[in-house]
């Protein structure tokens, strides 16, 4: 790790992310208009009343962007959390028990890494009908393998340590050993991977919405960009600004996770976030 680049990544990334989180939480207060309401004439370019213009129905783009932060961050965090749970479970069991269980679970994990993940996600979301729930579920089902592999290798290393033997000799069950003894020690690298998974989840949701697989009762950045494709040439602001916010969010998360020291983590090379 290089001293001079370590703190600024966390600093800048964290600050940006914090800003977006605040925006998301305070969305109803911050947004100048109701993002769904038809507040002005359609297709107005950015001006003083509508900072980023209006869309083809006359809805304020800035308000849409602010509320879109909620969707992105919620989807990102919840998906990352759910997939972390799946990944940790699979990885812990595989790494701890080894043997046939490990082999089976490794195959299971590999299967999910082989299938073209984005195609699988659009398949799932379309089948389950697009909604916040189905999007989160579909994304979670696809992005957990890196966590599983990481946790597995951590567990394989850690289970041979003395404190584990000590715990077992004290009569602790396997479950207790896994959860109370090993897992806390395995967490730090998982956090770094986890933050990247948030980025992946956000990008995946945006791509889904862009292609039209979105919950129509929510405003999402990807959806704003995708629905503006038919007027793309005339109303460039509808594509540029929501995309900018999306980009900055992912950028912030990436900076943050790089700063958290993931760049030397070999497991990360196996699966990069995004598509």
């Amino acid at each position, binding site marked *: 790790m290089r001293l001079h680049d370590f703190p600024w990544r966390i600093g800048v990334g964290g600050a940006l992310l914090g800003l977006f989180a605040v925006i998301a939480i305070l969305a109803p207060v911050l947004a100048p208009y109701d993002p*769904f*309401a*038809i507040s002005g004439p*359609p297709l107005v370019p950015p001006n003083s009343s509508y900072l980023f213009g209006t869309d*083809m*129905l*006359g809805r304020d783009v800035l308000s849409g962007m602010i509320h879109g932060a909620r969707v992105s961050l919620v989807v990102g965090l919840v998906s990352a959390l759910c997939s972390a749970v799946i990944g940790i479970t699979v990885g812990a069991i595989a790494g701890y028990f080894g043997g046939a269980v490990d082999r089976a679970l490794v195959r299971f994990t590999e299967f999910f890494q082989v299938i073209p993940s984005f195609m699988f996600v659009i398949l799932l979301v*379309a089948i389950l*009908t*697009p*909604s916040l729930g189905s999007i989160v579920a579909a994304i979670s089902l696809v992005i957990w393998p890196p966590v599983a592999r990481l946790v597995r290798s951590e567990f394989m290393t850690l289970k041979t340590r003395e404190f584990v033997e000590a715990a077992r000799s004290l009569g602790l069950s396997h479950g207790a050993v896994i959860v109370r003894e090993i897992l806390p020690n395995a967490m730090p690298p998982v956090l770094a991977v986890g933050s990247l998974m948030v980025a992946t989840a956000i990008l995946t949701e945006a791509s889904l919405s862009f292609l039209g697989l*979105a*919950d*129509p*009762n929510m405003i999402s950045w990807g959806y704003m960009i995708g*629905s503006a*494709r*038919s*007027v*793309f*040439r*005339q109303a460039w602001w509808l594509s540029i600004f929501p995309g900018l916010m999306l980009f900055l969010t992912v950028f912030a998360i990436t900076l943050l996770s790089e700063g958290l020291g993931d760049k030397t983590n070999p497991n990360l090379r196996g699966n990069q976030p995004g598509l």
Partner: protein
Amino acid sequence: MEKLITLVIAAFVGMASLASAEEPRRGGALQSVLWPEPPGIMTGINTQSSALLPTTKIFESLLKYDFNLNPKPNLAESWEISPDGLKYTFKLRRNVRWHDGKPFTADDVVFTYADYSIEVHPRARQVFERTRVSKIDDYTVEFALKEPFAPLIRSFDLCCLIVPAHLYKGTDFRNNPNNLKPVGTGPFKFKEWKRGEYIHLVRNDNYWRDGLPYLDEIYYRFVPDAASRALALETGQMQLATQNDLELFDVNRLAKLGHLDMTTKGWEWGSPIVWIEMNLRKKPFNDKRFRQALMYALDRKYFRDVIFQGSANLATGPVHSGSPFYEPNVTPYVQDTAKAEALLDEMGLKRGADGKRTTIKLLGLPYGEVWNRAAEYTRQALRKVGIEVILEPSDAAGWAERTRNWDFEMTMYFLTTLGDPALGVSRTFLSDNQKQGVLFTNHAGYANPEVDALFNKAAISTSDDERKKLYSQVQKILVDDAAVLWLVELIWPTVYSKKLHNAVTDASGPNGSFAETWLAK
């Protein structure tokens, strides 16, 4: 004196140039957009809108219809309807040949209506099951009915183009090898279909109309992207695009360009209307006041101007304004949110602490961005009067599945009302047409005996005047009842190069045979 001579010369020159400008030019290849690539172009079997464009150049019908939906001779030279409306006799043209050289006779017509269309085309089935077709002689055909059916004369259109009996009789229609190289009587013959690229048609040199068609050939090119299609017209690489080929925004932009023209004529037969159908079996939709409140809450002008970008007319009721049976004097339903709120209050649906009176669901039509915006606007408009709307996303199959199985609260779509109310309008409102599992029937569960009686009487009436009176009455009742939330009548624009003449000459529009179409240099 000099001035007079100059004037006379100018007049002659002017008239001469006018005359030459109108003289159709023989020759040229028309490049037309076609999207999406249809699975096939066999009439009757492939009925998607994009299949119709090439099909109608190869095959022909007995009759054509002008812009007022009056029947005109085509393969039928003349016809007679008996005074009791039970016998229709058609005299067929004699000098017509199939593209493979065999003569066209009454056998082909009888086969088409008694065997082929009934077998493959569901709409044809509904109409022609009422008739018994028979051959009187080689060039005379008779349709006999048990009870009169006035719309019959308007049914000889795109659904039942005549097919060659000598190639199809006794075969498995859907797997007949001629489906891939269709043989018709039309002005253009099938030449080649390069999948993924184009369909190529060439002039039928033995066409029964002397000297026609003017065009040497037609190419239907498949261009997957709407922006590309617009670009093709803009650059002059293609000369024709229609219906849903172009985004509405592009249509308006292209129409303003100097070398392109736009027409909205040619869909008089289709007459599509957009509406929101409500499931009347569910509360509060069974209350007329609720339905009327919804109508008053919506600004239909917004649909017309913003969502459909002017490519629409206000729909006042179930019958299209272009139909001879249209009744304009119905309850107007101009947007009036105060009235809407009053009706809702009267019903007992008061606003709660959060401002909401009730929550309902809308199943939108998943056919593109325009429809997404329409659903979103509906939600906004109803929210203003305290009705919360949850939008239900779906895809084409899902929408069809839910609508036909009555699994919806509100569903938005458009329906072609097909030239005659007995063909396209009554099916939505007749109480005995509630067929769960079948699309484009009475999904809502509307049941009004008065409406039933009026529709049924008008269907078998033989007097146009009587029919007009009956349909006027039924429209007044349906609109007042807000049986359905009528939004707009769709206008499907056809954008074409100024060099292309006579592309849209009757009610079939770009789905005409193009026998008289020509391209200037």
